[in-house]
Each structure stands twice: as structure tokens, then as C-alpha cells.
């Protein structure tokens, strides 16, 4: 065990390990690219849906349950299914990752919207605000902490799952995990896993820092 961790240490710090197309630097860049793009697409789908059902209070049951399908779908199965239908490209990976990310964003956005005090909304209407004004100026600002939590949650899940890109021949940190398993190279598998965890933690810290900065600003403005 000690030996394994010692080897892991030298694997992680070896200079040649960090450069070139198979290097850790490039793999992290690929991994971030897959994760961020998938989360952005998921947000583009899920945020409007969450805001809509939260604002109108209609269709929540259907939308939440439909979104939760994404959670129940086995990601690898979805990748293979889309792959067999569409062929070898990043599409299957993105479809699976987006399906994974949508539920957290929809449910958290919806939860944030419903948590807004109805009297506050009434007051906004009473001041003569229209529907979209209530949404943009009252509901979204108040729901923002929970919406951000949903986005963070989705991003972390996606970062952890983006390793499957390697399953269908693409890059990212999953390359180390899949290649290591196939070549019985445990150090490589462990190295890949540790790097994925590190990327996830760093991203989460960065987002929570961003969140804190955003809300400090908001509080000051109010």
C-alpha cells in the first residue's frame, strides 16, 4: 500500500507526465472543456425550465419528474445507446453529461423560486411590477443562492462523470483510469482518480468563492 502511494507520488510529479498530448496538463484542459461545456448546455436548458415552473407554479410535477429521469439513467448505458444510434463523436458523452446535470439545476432552481416569500411577490405586484419584472428583480435575486448551489452540484457531478469520455476513445482524465485498468497499471488508475477529485474540489471552491463575492456585492447594493 505504501509502495503504491509512493509510486503515485512520483507519477504525479514526473515532469514528462505533465507535457505533451498524453500529459496531465492537456488531459485536465480536456476534462475542463467537456465539463464546462456540458454544464453550460445543461444550464441553458434547465434554468429557463426551473424559472418558468417556479414563477408560474405550473407543470412543476411533470418537469421535476421528467428531469429526474436524467438522474435515474445509467450514464454509461446512455453513452452506448447514443453512440450506437449516432456513431463515434463527443455527442454521446455530452448527451449523457447534460442528462446528468439537468436534474440538479431544475430542482434547485425550482426550490429557490418557491422559497421566495409570497408576500414579497405580492408587494412587488402591488407596486405595479409586471410579471417579468417580478421575476427579474425580485424572484431571481432572492432565489440566486439556491440556483447557484444547483449549478455547483451539477458541475461537480459532471466533472466526476466526464471520465466516461475515455470510454468512447476521447480524452480527459478518464483516459488514465481506463488505460490504467486495461493495462493493469494501478498507479495510473489511482493518479487519474486523484486528479479528478482534485479538479472537482478546486472548481467547487472557486464557485463558492465566486458566490460569496457576488452576494457580498448584492448586499452592499441593497
Amino acid at each position, binding site marked *: 500500500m505504501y509502495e503504491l502511494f509512493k509510486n503515485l507520488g512520483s507519477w504525479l510529479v514526473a515532469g514528462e507526465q505533465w507535457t505533451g498530448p498524453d500529459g496531465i496538463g492537456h488531459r485536465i484542459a480536456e476534462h475542463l472543456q467537456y465539463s464546462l461545456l456540458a454544464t453550460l448546455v445543461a444550464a441553458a436548458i434547465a434554468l429557463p425550465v426551473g424559472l418558468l415552473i417556479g414563477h408560474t407554479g405550473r407543470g412543476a410535477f411533470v418537469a421535476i419528474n421528467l428531469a429526474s429521469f436524467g438522474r435515474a439513467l445509467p450514464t454509461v448505458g446512455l453513452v452506448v445507446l447514443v*453512440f450506437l444510434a449516432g456513431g*463515434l463523436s463527443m455527442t454521446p458523452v455530452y448527451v449523457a453529461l447534460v442528462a446528468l446535470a439537468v436534474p440538479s439545476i431544475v430542482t434547485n432552481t425550482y426550490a429557490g423560486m418557491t422559497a421566495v416569500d409570497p408576500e414579497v411577490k405580492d408587494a412587488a405586484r402591488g407596486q405595479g411590477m409586471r410579471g417579468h419584472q417580478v421575476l427579474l428583480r425580485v424572484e431571481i435575486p432572492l432565489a440566486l443562492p439556491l440556483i447557484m448551489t444547483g449549478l455547483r452540484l451539477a458541475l461537480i457531478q459532471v466533472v466526476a462523470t466526464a471520465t466516461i469520455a475515455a470510454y468512447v476513445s476521447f480524452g480527459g482524465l478518464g483516459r488514465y483510469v481506463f488505460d490504467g485498468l486495461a*493495462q493493469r497499471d494501478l498507479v495510473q488508475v489511482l493518479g487519474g482518480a486523484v486528479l479528478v477529485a482534485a479538479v472537482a474540489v478546486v472548481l467547487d471552491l472557486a464557485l463558492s468563492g465566486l458566490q460569496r463575492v457576488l452576494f457580498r456585492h448584492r448586499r452592499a447594493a441593497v
Partner: protein
Amino acid sequence: MNAQGSASSPNSASSASSPSSTSSTSSTSSASSSSSPKHSPLPRRAILGGLLAAASVPALAACGGGITSLDGQGGGGGNGGGGSSANGVTIGTANFTENQILGYLYAAALGAAGVKTKVRPNLGTREILIPALKGGDIDLLPEYQGALLHYLSPKATATEEGAMQNALAVALPEGLQILPYGRAEDSDAFAVTRETAAEYGLASLADLKKQNGKLVIGAAPEVKKRVVGVVGLKEVYGVEFKEFKSLDSSGPLVKGALKKGDVDVANLFTTDTDIAAEGWVVLTDPKNLVPGQHVVPLIADRKADSAVRKALARLGGALTTEDLTELNRQVDKDKKDPEDVANAWAAAHGLVKKR
């Protein structure tokens, strides 16, 4: 044979001193994994003990070793030398369809020769099967020449059937032997679609060199670093691919990619039913890069008598790669039972059980 008996005993003896914490689990596994009478002095029992000890189930190992120990081995010793299948032969098989079918085919062939058999399917990988065979838990195992040779001596260079048979005879541990190999073969193959073969003029692996830097190969991740893969293709045939795509071993990914044209060359198994179904072209291997993987019976000396040898040689001579491919298809695609499929083939080829 006795050497193995004593080899397994220290194993169980050492575990006897270790604390027992999982007695309930071990007793149930003993009941399910051996149908022989509880106190029957079969050598198998002792080895079962040894095996379970290895799987860190100390309580039963102590008990198994205690019941039979060397006495049981002494009784089994009567079979020593020539070997005898009079007490029946236990056939073990690995955890994939084709190996299970082969196990049932062996059972059918031996049954037709009047030998009693018991099949224990789906036992796992070589890492489990070979120790079980050495130990006496199983007596016979359907194996593949190249893969077995690579397992026993990873640096072996033989790839031709006869040379491998000789190398295997040398590499095998005491107490185990291989019988003559059969016609059927399940080896690695590099396949292209008919269109690709026509477009680039591909018939053999050597032809790939003419298209260096143009073709994309799809295979399981390990093939990138294997001699029977990218490394050997470069060394032996001078082939360089444009790109290597890590997919799976003759599974839906690599086959899907080949079908759709996402890869030009795919690493498949020769008994894959889709090769014929899709009309794919398997590239020939004039320089014998890919080791032969003829099916070969691996058997313990103690059971290898002439009745067993003849029955298995007869089966080996009758079963072709095409037959095996078809049987695989019946199990994997038609969802038939491996035992039924094997028995139907055996009956059609005159291997009917003697009463």
C-alpha cells in the same frame, strides 16, 4: 500429484492457526460448492479447503484440511501415475459464453465415451481456475493455446500451433498436461469492412503498411501497448496508424465504430458472430504476429486416461471455428442455454451419452 497434495496442505494448515471469524459463510459455501458426501475422502475436499483458505475463509479451511489432510491424498494416490477417470471428471469453465459452451461440449464428448462428468460453469478467470485445477477442485478446463502460454510464461515467443504446444508442455506446472489441440480457434483478428478492403486493397496485415498514416484503428485500451496490437503491428509489419481509438474488446463500441466507418480497422475475436453477419474481412497474418488460439484441453494428470484423451481428441477434430461461432451466436443472440446448445451439437455429431 502427491507433491500438489502437500503443497496445498501447508496452505490450509497455516490458516488453521489464524482466527476464525466467518464460520457461517464458510459452511454455506462448502455445502453449495461440493455435492460429494461430507466425509468422502476425495482429494478435492482438501483442495477446496486450500482454495477457501486462499479466499480468506479460515474456519472452513481448517476444517477441510483436518478431515482429509494427507490421508485423503493417500487414497487419491492410488490413481497416480497413469491417471484414471473412473471416479468421474469435474469440468470447470471460465466466465464467458464460449468457454461454458466448450465445457458442456467436453461433458458431452466424455459422456459419450462412458466417463462420468460434472460441469462447474462460470468459475471466473485463469487466476482462479488454474489454482483450482492444480488443487483438484476441478480436473479439466477448456483452454486456448496462446492465452494459456502467455499466462504461464509471459515472455514466450512461440506463435505457431505446434511450437506453442511444445512450449506449453514445458511451461505447465507439475501435475497438469495439455491434450492435442482442436481445430476450433478463437484468436485476435484485425478486421476491416468490405468497402475499406476494396478501397485500400487490403487482404493481409502487411497491406496496411501501404496506407501508413491514413487508417484509424479501434480496439480495447490495452491493445495500444500490446505486442498483439499496435506495438507488434509496427515491429513486425511496419504499420503505423493515423490514430488509435480506445474502445472495447470485440464489443458493441468497436463493432459499432467499424460499422459506421469511425474506425477503419477493428480488433475483434475470430468467433465473433458479427464478422460473418456484416461481411467484414479479417486480414490474414502471413508473419504469424497473432498467436494461434486453438482450443486445447488442460487436464490434471490424475484424470488423463486413454478414454478421456480419445474422447476429447475426437471432439477437437470435429468442432470447427465456424461451429463454435454458431454456438456462440445461439447463446448470445438467441438466448439459448449453453448446455442445451452443446448437447444439440454433440447429438448432431454422433456424440450420444452411453447408458
